[in-house]
């Protein structure tokens, strides 16, 4: 017998990850840009273009007051987009998130205002209602096998009906204008010193973690990224964050709701990418049969994801209601749903499941929020406004699509 295997461990033909000098690394990065995975860069470019255009059309766009408003405006959207991102990762859809957010708002107001629940308790009840809704919808989808589109379409109608019922005769319920909830959502800003500290700590933390991982990898004799890369990223991040913070504190500062939204986005990004649970979501979205055969409890993943999505929708509804200072029959209706999905998709989440970019909900919410905010400053009539909104939205994504297209000529 001839044993043809005489070579020892075969080194990979082209060592791609190990790059030693900055010059080579930049070359590699440009190469990646041309042919490889370029992540969220195109949509960030799109965002920058939007900012430039609106700023040139109306110089108030970038003033501190407006930027603070923008932060306040996208908090609820970003939270809801985070939830729907999870569902989209499965290749499914949840049409009920708007209704659920409206229902949660109604529950919050009724329990807090009409029944006198303490603010936190009322918030908790409202959010749990969302969780319950998600569990129900997820179970019908996963266990009975009704397409998620239909389950959540039924949910869209049903929860809106329940919302009307909960609000009852009154229709609109106002939060106490000086109450905790309104104060928190409308008038609470991070103290300046804290904001500056946080904006300094975040990049440092990133750097620290990168270096630790790098050490562990080196110890395990795995290829490592060059040292300068995390340092460069951390420095850029530091400068950017400090600039933004400085700007925002010309006005009221960084709203807590915005910080909360960013934390939600970051947490779920971590959950998706760094935990076994998130890995399973990727797997189910990528190839459900492979996931099932790997022993993953697919039903449970599906149910829990729908529950998380609805929970986040409820949180979003609560945040929106606190910011508006009221809830009514229209809370959560209209474009709430489509904006959330659009934010997730613009941020780079695939509707076919299994693919999303880092911080997609945040980037998408920024794009959608900026467009809406910028257009408000331009005093357009309704017809022109609609046309411009659509066009800008498309333009923001075209850059991304063009880059993708040049990158790969086939496949989704």
């Amino acid at each position: 017998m001839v044993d043809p295997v005489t070579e020892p461990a075969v080194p990979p033909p082209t060592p791609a990850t190990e790059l030693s000098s900055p010059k080579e690394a930049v070359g590699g990065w440009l190469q990646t840009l041309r042919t490889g995975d370029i992540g969220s860069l195109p949509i960030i470019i799109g965002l920058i273009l939007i900012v430039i255009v609106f700023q040139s059309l109306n110089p108030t766009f970038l003033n501190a007051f407006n930027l603070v408003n923008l932060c306040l405006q996208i908090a609820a959207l970003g939270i809801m987009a985070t939830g729907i991102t999870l569902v989209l990762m499965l290749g499914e859809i949840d049409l009920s998130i708007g209704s659920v957010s409206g229902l949660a708002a109604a529950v919050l107001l009724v329990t807090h205002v009409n029944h006198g629940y303490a603010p936190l308790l009322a918030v908790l009840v409202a959010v749990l209602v969302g969780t319950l809704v998600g569990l129900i919808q997820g179970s019908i989808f996963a266990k009975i096998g009704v397409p998620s589109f239909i389950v959540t379409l039924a949910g869209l109608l049903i929860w809106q009906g329940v919302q009307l019922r909960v609000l009852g005769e009154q229709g609109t319920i106002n939060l106490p204008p000086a109450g905790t909830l309104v104060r928190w959502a409308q008038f609470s800003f991070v103290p300046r010193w804290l904001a500056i500290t946080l904006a300094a700590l975040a990049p440092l933390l990133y750097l620290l973690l990168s270096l630790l991982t790098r050490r562990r990898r080196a110890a395990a004799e795995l290829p490592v990224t060059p040292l300068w890369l995390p340092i460069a990223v951390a420095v850029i991040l530091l400068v950017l964050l400090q600039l933004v913070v400085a700007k925002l504190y010309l006005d009221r500062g960084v709203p807590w709701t915005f910080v909360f939204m960013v934390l939600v986005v970051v947490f779920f990004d971590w959950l998706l990418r760094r935990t076994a649970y998130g890995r399973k979501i990727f797997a189910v979205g990528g190839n459900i049969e492979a996931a099932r055969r790997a022993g993953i409890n697919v039903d449970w993943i599906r149910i829990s994801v729908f529950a998380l999505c609805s929970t986040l929708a409820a949180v979003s509804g609560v945040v929106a209601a606190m910011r508006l200072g009221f809830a009514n029959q229209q809370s959560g209706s209209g474009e709430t749903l489509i904006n959330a999905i659009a934010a997730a998709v613009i941020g780079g989440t695939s509707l076919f499941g299994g693919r999303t970019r880092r911080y997609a909900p945040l980037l998408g919410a920024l794009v959608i929020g900026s467009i809406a905010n910028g257009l408000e400053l331009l005093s357009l009539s309704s017809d022109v406004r609609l046309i411009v909104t659509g066009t800008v939205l498309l333009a923001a994504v075209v850059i991304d699509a063009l880059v993708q297209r040049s990158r790969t000529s086939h496949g989704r």
Partner: protein
Amino acid sequence: MRGVSKRFGAVQALSEVDLDVYAGEVVALVGDNGAGKSTLVKAICGVSPPDTGTVTFAGREVRVESPHAAQELGIATVFQDLALCDNLDVVNNLFLGRELRRGASLDEVEMERRSGKLLRELAARIPSVRLPVASLSGGQRQTVAISRSLLGDPKVVLLDEPTAALGVAQTAQVLNLIERLRDRGLGVVLISHNMVDVRAVADRVAVLRLGRNNGEFRIHEVTNEQIIAAITGATQNVVSERVARLREQSAGDDPLAAGSAEGGA
């Protein structure tokens, strides 16, 4: 397993099939295309439970209703259609469903290290374990699937055409590996159309034909022609006659020469 049947719509994929696998033994399961081999494997490992029939594992009768249950029992499987998540990279596919953790989050470093080691053992030629499997070649994907099945601590390994897409070096490694598994006392079921591979490692050969058992042979007591006759449909009678006749001659044909039967044309 006894009397396993499975029906898909109008197609009766398996009828009353029996199969025994003992620890420390390699059983080759052979049969024509569409004979029901893969269906049988899927029935054993819980992917599509059979309509009728029972599975006895380590003396107990068990119901394997889901792949998870099969995993718990220690049944690992390489599927013919591989079943990898295209959107995940090699490391993640290898550890899917049994990720290593460090606190709440994943231990990527350790997983990557082990993946590299495992793949090197199989002489896999994979440029980077961080590539998504969508971008791997057919043989590379197959190597990943085989490695996957070895990661847990299985008692029985079911391999559905594991070497179909592999290069010569990799095939040799996989055959080595199968022998190592057997020596460690695992039960191995090997499905293959390649008689050379079958002869090289199998102790016993079970033949399926049109969803039915069509003979079972000790590998040393049978020639390739006999197996092929059983596969392609010589009647049970003819085969048993020939087996009886050939048994008298004992170690009859030269297995190497018989290997060429497969060369066709």
